[in-house]
């Protein structure tokens, strides 16, 4: 990947990272979107979409609720999308490596967001007197500072995921000796398994449970139609 493309990837990673909490919460940070955008930067948006859709299944598990610490999927999925695009087509042995790094990066994203919030809190304490005096400039400075910290955090996370992910994926692809379907089954099994568990937790109570089951039946019909 050229330096210009890498810079573009970091910029897109920063945007999707900002989207999660700071601005504008338009769900650009969802893996489905971020993976697609990362793939687009690397020239193959649909390759990015494929891994983005898989990571989206993991993202069903966590709801971005208030003070809870939740994973930051955007930068991780953006970098993973670019890595999938670099590989060209689907190769589960490559994807196993990318997904392991993306999962770690998403978890680290939650941790770094917590740290960024603590830095913002320190800035708020420093400007306490101005805030209590109702100075709009203090509010503006805090908003801009929080946004800048979040953008830098997200860009760094994108770079981490991309650089480490590429090394890990190349090493795994070169060293893989087991039957290749094992990688396919592990990737789809874990991603879909987390989504199934999350769906049950969210909608496993009455009356939603029957709708979940009805949806599964309808999905089976769709699957059958596609298969035949």
């Amino acid at each position: 990947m050229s330096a210009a493309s890498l810079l573009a990837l970091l910029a897109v990673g920063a945007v999707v990272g900002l989207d999660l909490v700071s601005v504008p919460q338009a769900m650009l940070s969802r893996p489905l979107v971020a993976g697609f955008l990362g793939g687009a930067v690397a020239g193959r948006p649909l390759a990015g979409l494929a891994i983005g859709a898989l990571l989206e299944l993991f993202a069903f598990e966590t709801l971005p609720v208030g003070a809870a610490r939740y994973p930051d999927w955007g930068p991780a999925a953006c970098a993973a999308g670019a890595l999938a695009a670099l590989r060209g087509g689907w190769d589960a042995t490559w994807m196993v490596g990318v997904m392991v790094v993306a999962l770690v990066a998403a978890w680290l994203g939650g941790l770094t967001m917590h740290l960024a919030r603590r830095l913002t809190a320190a800035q708020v304490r420093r400007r306490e007197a101005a805030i209590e005096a109702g100075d709009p400039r203090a509010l503006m400075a805090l908003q801009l500072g929080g946004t800048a910290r979040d953008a830098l955090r997200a860009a760094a996370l994108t770079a981490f995921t991309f650089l480490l992910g590429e090394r890990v994926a190349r090493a795994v692809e070169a060293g893989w000796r087991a039957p290749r379907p094992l990688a396919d089954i592990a990737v789809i099994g874990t991603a879909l398994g987390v989504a199934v568990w999350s769906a049950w937790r969210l909608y496993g109570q009455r009356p939603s449970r029957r709708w979940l089951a009805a949806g599964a039946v309808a999905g089976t019909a769709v699957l059958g139609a596609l298969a035949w």
Partner: protein
Amino acid sequence: MVARSAIPGFALAVARLFTIQAAWTYERMLGIGFGFVAEPMLRGLRRDGDGSAFRRAVARQSRYFNAHPYFASLAVGAAVRAELDGVQPEKIERLRSALVGPLGSLGDRLIWAGWLPACAAIGLLLVALSAGAWAVVAFLVLYNVAHVWLRIWGLKAGWRSGVSVAGALATPGLQRALEIVAPVAAFLVGAALVSVLAWVPAGGRWETLAGAAAALLFAGLVRAIQPRATGMVVAGGVLAAVLAVGVLW
């Protein structure tokens, strides 16, 4: 009293609503962002006296507040309305405190557990149906029509209602949406999760069946070890183990 039809600083306040969480902290939560959004709407108070009323109002609106970020606009509209109507500061602070729980709960149920999973499921269904980039476009457009509408509606409804904002939460449309969003999301998520198997990449029928079986087994494993670890952490461990097995085979 100010005219109820005109919302001062409306366009700037709407633009700022999208940044309401930019300075989120554990102490004030959305407080700083709340004050930042309210500030352009409060500028009318600058004209009164030495501007101290404006500064006191901005300071008050920057204190602790927490709610779902989209529904926070309702509280901003109501609190600013109350400030401009000259409502006592203690009453305004009670109003803000009273809105924290209901607006948080409403947003969690309607958006995080309903509308977002429903839209994501539609996106995944479209990916399974090979819609490609249209899956992403459909997800973003569908989700954000409701998202943007809610932010603007909230600001307007809060402004119209002032301290009587509780009435806005009882709007029939909102109550109806709460009733139907969970079943709709459950149906779409159920359909999407099965359809996902259609694009098990490079997989034949046996890989698809094995993927489905592995997913059910894995879901059972995650359920069994809750709440000691999240599914994501368990998945990371399992994939790392598979990676090691694949290389050391």
